[in-house]
């Protein structure tokens, strides 16, 4: 019998030890039977996986015995249980290499968050009021079944909308299968979507995946705006590679960053070059022009990727350094020199991401960068761009989906035919989309909304029914990351601890509903539990030679893989790139921006926050208090303004600024920042939550809300394509941890 079942029976039958507390008969503290045999003070380390971004870093969790006050079946009591105390990287993991980013450490606060939803809830007041009452799991499942059951029978397409964050592994398989069985489709949403790069890589290399960059063997790295040491793609793996690149004996690599605002990543560049937003593709082609013209690489090195670009075969005359330099405000000599350096100090690799791909010409810029990589000889080679073999094998990774533009398809879908039911899991589009897209008004039309999330946020507050998932540390983990390693890899880890609240694993809830519904739904999801589904999916790896785990039987393999936190191949096996014929001619266009430059003189640069990521981590106090890397600001929002611009406009540090686009306004205190262009202002993404626990609700301002509904060529949100105007409207406050911004200044500001 499972311990959990024993525990339930024990509690119900009263066969527990009751603690008489201090002679106060009203304050009996029930002592539940301990869940595990742990020795007090002795830690065990359990493998797990971090889920706070798409990297899926392998972790190890320090678990020690402790006393937790919990509620079981409505009864408050004390239970001795294994409690996660610390998360570290798993040294054997091919992505994390034993390291973590700041967010990975803060994941502990998700499990122990005071505002976590502790059990199933049903809305009592109006939808969106945030008034809920706790109900039992039996009641919650009954209500969910009542709403979804008829959809399986009717099998009406579009009746069910399952909106999730991008998922991997059997979690994704189960969600997909469930959605289809109940007349719907899963729609994945994330703000920092990968669709632009996935589409570019599909066209260039036949692989719709984010790149895995072999930085430890790179000699020359050029990045167009990609925050690869902070938040972009697989930051931990990239940081590990970067460290090795810097300190190879006698061969320290060079790093050049092109961007409009000095980011945390950009600060580490040997050469930081200011470039206006939207010009990244043009600069990449300008570099290619020099390499081609000066014959620094074999003429046809870029092959079909090059010739697909308009003008490539005639030497990209439109992108001569003098022309590009004039438009970009960079000297032609610099472009020429960097082209020469990169071509003669291989392996050289070029990256693009974040703001540069969040433009109306983002896809064309990404294709230009791919062609440049091909020309430099780094595509598919050590020290360059490679691709995860598991991403290509498909099925279990998030590649190929997750375009944030997909939420607009949803919105259009709802406009034409309203689904009967909306299920939410891990996605918060009401927060993370421009108000111009009107996502909230459209989601509200759906008659029944249920959420599986652990927190009430702007989107899940619309839910009529909440069936909270357990936190990642309390859950089975599986799946393969899209990038970060070129070894074959699948993460598998059992829960590091038992749930402290009365939450249930979401995939298991779906399986229960499917089984109860019967028919095709039950056939589509035949597993008894999520754990069984994961175990079954692993069988394919047991016979693969040269893996990290070898075993004689399926059961032996299963227990060894769990203990290791996953299975991976011993050797790197980067996926083979397929250079197809790309029929279409690619033209790098001039980026378009919303707002007439006369009235809206500033480029608006929202940037991913190292602490809040896309806003999903603003609810964690460690993240609110950790100083922002470039400004040291805590607990707030700010507007970064260039010092010369601030002086011209009479703006002082911490003055309250109103930032206005054609689509809305936000307010935040000014941060006089030397690292931003005079014709741009920047705001961190992640604050400005209306509803997101006590630590984030009503705090700061959300720059996404005022963005113009501009799109990249493939329909993703072009979050870098909005222009704004600013004005001083009062005085605000900045909570800065650091003092001066320059070494030779003394901060005498009274706080």
């Amino acid at each position, binding site marked *: 019998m499972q311990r959990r079942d024993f525990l339930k029976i024990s509690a119900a039958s009263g066969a527990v030890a009751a603690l008489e507390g201090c002679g106060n008969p009203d304050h009996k503290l029930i002592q539940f039977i301990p869940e595990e045999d742990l020795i007090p003070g002795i830690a065990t380390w359990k493998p797990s996986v971090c889920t706070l971004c798409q990297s899926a870093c392998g972790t190890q969790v320090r678990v020690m015995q402790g006393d937790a006050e919990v509620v079981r079946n409505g009864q408050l009591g004390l239970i001795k249980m294994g409690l996660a105390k610390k998360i570290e990287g798993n040294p054997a993991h091919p992505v994390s290499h034993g390291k973590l980013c700041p967010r990975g450490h803060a994941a502990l606060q998700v499990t*122990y968050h005071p505002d976590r939803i502790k059990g199933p809830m049903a809305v009592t007041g109006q939808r969106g009021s945030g008034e809920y009452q706790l109900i039992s799991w039996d009641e919650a499942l009954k209500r969910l079944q009542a709403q979804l059951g008829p959809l399986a029978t009717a099998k009406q397409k579009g009746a069910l909308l399952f909106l999730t964050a991008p998922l991997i592994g059997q979690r994704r398989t189960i969600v997909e299968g469930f959605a289809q069985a109940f007349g719907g489709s899963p729609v994945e949403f994330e703000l920092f979507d990968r669709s632009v790069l996935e589409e570019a890589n599909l066209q260039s290399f036949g692989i719709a995946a984010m790149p895995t960059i072999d930085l430890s063997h790179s000699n020359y790295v050029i990045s167009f705006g990609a925050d690869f040491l902070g938040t972009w793609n697989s930051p931990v793996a990239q940081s590990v590679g970067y460290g090795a690149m810097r*300190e190879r004996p006698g061969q320290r690599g060079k790093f050049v960053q092109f961007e409009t605002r000095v980011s945390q990543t950009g600060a580490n560049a040997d050469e930081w070059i*200011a470039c206006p937003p939207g010009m990244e593709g043009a600069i990449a082609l300008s570099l290619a022009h020099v390499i081609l013209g000066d014959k620094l690489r074999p003429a046809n090195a870029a092959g079909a990727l090059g010739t697909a670009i308009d003008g490539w075969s005639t030497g990209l005359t439109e992108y001569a350094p003098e022309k590009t330099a004039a438009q970009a405000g960079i000297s032609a000599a610099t472009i020429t020199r960097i082209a020469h350096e990169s071509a003669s100090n291989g392996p050289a690799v070029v990256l693009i991401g974040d703001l540069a791909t969040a433009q109306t010409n983002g896809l064309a810029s990404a294709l230009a960068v791919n062609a440049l990589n091909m020309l430099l000889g780094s595509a598919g080679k050590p020290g360059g761009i490679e691709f995860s073999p598991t991403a290509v094998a498909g099925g279990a990774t998030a590649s190929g989906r997750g375009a944030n533009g997909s939420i607009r398809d949803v919105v259009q879908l709802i406009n034409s035919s309203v689904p009967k039911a909306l299920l939410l899991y891990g996605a918060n589009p009401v927060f993370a989309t421009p108000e111009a897209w009107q996502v909230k008004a459209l989601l509200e039309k759906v008659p029944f909304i249920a959420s599986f999330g652990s927190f009430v946020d702007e989107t899940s507050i619309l839910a009529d029914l909440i069936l909270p998932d357990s936190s990642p540390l309390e859950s089975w983990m599986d799946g393969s990351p899209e990038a970060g390693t070129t070894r074959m890899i699948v993460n598998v880890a059992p829960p590091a601890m038992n749930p402290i609240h009365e939450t249930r694993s979401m995939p298991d809830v779906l399986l229960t509903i499917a089984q109860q519904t019967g028919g095709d739904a039950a056939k589509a999801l035949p597993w008894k539990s999520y754990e069984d589904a994961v175990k079954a999916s692993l069988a394919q790896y047991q016979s693969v030679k040269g893996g990290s785990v070898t075993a004689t039987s399926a059961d032996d393999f299963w227990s060894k893989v769990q203990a290791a936190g996953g299975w991976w191949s011993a050797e790197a096996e980067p996926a083979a790139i397929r250079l197809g014929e790309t029929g279409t001619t690619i033209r790098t266009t001039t980026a378009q921006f919303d707002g007439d430059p006369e009235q809206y003189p500033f480029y608006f640069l929202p940037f991913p926050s190292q602490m809040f990521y896309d806003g999903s981590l603003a609810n964690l106090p460690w993240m609110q208090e950790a100083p922002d890397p470039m400004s040291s600001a805590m607990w707030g929002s700010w507007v970064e303004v260039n010092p010369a611009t601030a002086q011209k406009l009479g703006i002082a540090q911490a003055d309250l600024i109103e930032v206005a686009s054609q689509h809305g306004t936000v307010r935040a205190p000014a941060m006089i920042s030397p690292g931003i262009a005079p014709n741009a202002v920047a705001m961190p993404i992640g604050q400005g939550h209306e509803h997101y626990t006590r630590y984030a609700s009503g705090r700061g301002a959300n720059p996404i809300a005022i963005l113009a509904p501009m799109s990249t060529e493939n329909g993703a949100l072009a979050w870098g394509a909005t222009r704004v105007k600013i004005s001083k409207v009062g005085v605000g406050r900045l909570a800065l941890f650091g003092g001066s911004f320059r070494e030779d200044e003394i901060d005498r500001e009274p706080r």
Partner: protein
Amino acid sequence: MARQWGMVIDLDRCTGCEACVVACHAENNIDTVGEDQAARGRAKHWIRVERYYEGEYPDIKAKFMPVLCQQCAAAPCEPVCPTFASYHTAEGLNGQIYNRCIGTRYCANACPYTVRFFNWFNPVWDEPLNLQFNPDVSIRSVGMMEKCTFCVQRIKAAEIQAEAEKRPLKDGEFAPACVQTCAPKAMVFGDLNDPTSEVARLARSNRATKLLEETGARPQVTYLKRGSWNGAENAENA
């Protein structure tokens, strides 16, 4: 020879990500103080990443520098403490005895590195955040100074384990939380008195420098300057 714990921080590798800052909070039961107190300068980041800009846009550069208690051999914080709460250990650490501290805050006044933090009020954790506490580290209460200890709990645990197993400690066998999590491997920790240790070797680098050495504090943290790139010859590194 007695141990002298020390660190080397390679500024060429540090990316400013602040994983060290958050790892330290998690390991050492450091509470968050909230917005108002943080605005008054009362947040307690035992390790912080300083960021300095140089130049003017567009010729602008920014540099990162992690700063933590330097465990100075001639620590200015030690002679000014009236109760010897701030003292020097036999293994070269500046120790802080929490229950001796009476909160004069003179140690923080004397410290050139601003790495000492005062508990202006009793720490608050909204339950059940307190379930995350590391049982190996004391919770400080109001009126006490606190600072980086080089994760002395980890040092002690490793020493006890090695002694129980009747073997010497190996270089790199354990590390403070910040060093352990640093992805670009910018931080190295070990015994400076062991000439074969990695930290001792790196401290002899031609890029080595120390912070505010002119104060005479004799800090035990060595910083390695950022490298440069000279075209085809590439550049100086360790």
